[in-house]
């Protein structure tokens, strides 16, 4: 079973991203349980979504405290929130950022990093910093857990509030293509 934690800010579509990802994974025959965590329900406030994936039915309906994967769709969030809290060793971190790998503080528990300038792409495609579709592409590229095709399918049946499906598919594609993936050398047992 994989545990994925998605971090974002209210209004960027983090929760919708978890829904699309859930649909895509179900499309690929997986069992999924995704729940959001709301603090203050307003634009800009930190928001998390928790997604469990397994090959058999998932029963527990609780938050995720020890994720294998962290997907952070906002570049400013890591300085405001401890997005790595409880992360398991050999974790994968997918981050929306303009920065390069050496400019970032990567914790020991992370052994694979995917970086994508989601703000830049989102402003280009939508004219606004709504990063969810872009970062889903980044997630697919970095983790290989889900295919673009399934994410397409997942997007077809959600109600996007701010832009049409084709723009979101475009963002997804660009996110996938414009993500740099880094494998880090980690000592066994670290």
């Amino acid at each position: 079973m994989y545990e994925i934690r998605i971090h974002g800010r209210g209004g960027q579509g983090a929760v919708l991203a978890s829904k699309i990802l859930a649909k895509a994974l179900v499309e690929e025959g997986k069992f999924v349980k995704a729940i959001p965590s709301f603090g203050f329900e307003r634009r800009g406030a930190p928001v998390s979504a928790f997604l469990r994936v397994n090959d058999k039915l998932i029963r527990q309906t609780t938050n995720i405290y020890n994720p294998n994967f962290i997907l952070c769709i906002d570049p400013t969030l890591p300085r405001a929130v401890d997005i790595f809290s409880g992360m398991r060793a050999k974790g994968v971190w997918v981050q929306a950022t303009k920065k390069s790998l050496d400019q970032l503080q990567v914790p020991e528990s992370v052994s694979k990093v995917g970086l994508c300038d989601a703000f830049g792409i989102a402003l280009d495609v939508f004219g606004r910093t709504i990063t969810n579709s872009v970062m889903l592409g980044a997630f697919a590229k970095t983790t290989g857990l889900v295919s673009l095709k399934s994410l397409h399918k997942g997007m077809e049946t959600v109600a996007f509030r701010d832009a049409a499906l084709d723009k979101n598919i475009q963002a997804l594609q660009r996110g996938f293509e414009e993500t740099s993936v880094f494998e880090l050398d980690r000592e066994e047992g670290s």
Partner: protein
Amino acid sequence: MVCDGNEAAAWGVALSRPDVVAVYPITPQSSLAEYISQFVADGIIQADLMDVEGEHSVLSVLHGACLAGARTFTATCGQGLAFMFEPYFRTPPLRLPIVMSIVTRDGITPQCVWGGQQDAMTVREVGWVHMYCETAQEVLDTIVMAYKIAEHRDIMLPVNVNHDGNYLSYGVEKVVLPDQEEVDDFLGEKNINWHVALDPERPMSVDPLTGGAEGSGPALFVRYRKGSCKAMQNALRVIQEVHEEWEKRFGRSYAPLVEEYRLEDAKYAIVTIGSMTGAGKDAVDLARESGEKVGLIKIKTVRPFPVQTLRQALSKVKAIGVVDRSVSFGWNCGPMYQELLSTLYLLDERIPAISFIGGLAGADIRIEHFNRAIETTAKALRGEEFSEPIWLNEKD
């Protein structure tokens, strides 16, 4: 499809073909209200949508619609339920078969917009049938079943289908949509107001004032109250029958009243309700792996309270730990604990029982918390006394 509990509920409503719906948004029910409105706009629900100014009007409007023969639906929780209390209070004795989702939310003071069960638990004595769901699929299925239960000739009571705020309302999972034709066949002909109606063709006075204590008042009251109680007892049977028919037609089964999990050779058990059960079952599996003979009992139907079914389950174990997601202020324990204590009275021998209270104000009841509940109940089994409730999220 993949959707959350609120959307699943809206689909359950759509499949049941209501005639009049009225909703007012309130967290964490809001998206349910929005889906209902969207479905009406899109023609998926072909009903009259009443846009009213508050929950008091929501249910009052549905009273009128129901008396005119409409199949109805609404949803609320928390303060919305509180605002709705005046018409809520009279719906069961009026015998109106309204189906309502409570997207359970904790009590509002201290200020809180997060999940819990204080709202639904507090109103369990009003006379509505109360069922608690564990998954989004169960929400969809139970709403459709609720109409069959509510409109059953031996019942004619309003039904609350409750699902945990946040966990089930916004929790996304794979959900299967039952076939519409099969549902139509399952629910059969609508006959909502054969017994009490605002209908010029059948003039009658609906709920007139009863005589005072010197007049016919008391005897009438006893008659009607006994009738309500009889209907509730019938519901124990009908809820089981409806769930059995559901399994035959749609292939999905749910324990209608009480579910027993790994109870056959268990020495003790934890008792759960609603979405917390998933983590509870996982914790039981873990404990079993290390040799503990523990099981789980899940309560689905809280009203009518399945006394005999629970008694049978409880007679298999020698200690229980009841995990509540709400508080019984007057008894210093959880409400389900209180009800379980009453049920234990019927057992041949007295067994220890502990009250655990967790998950208040949207807190998680995790596998770790269940581990603690299991360990503590094991201690009770070995004779340790626990007179105070254990508050699971106290130090979180």
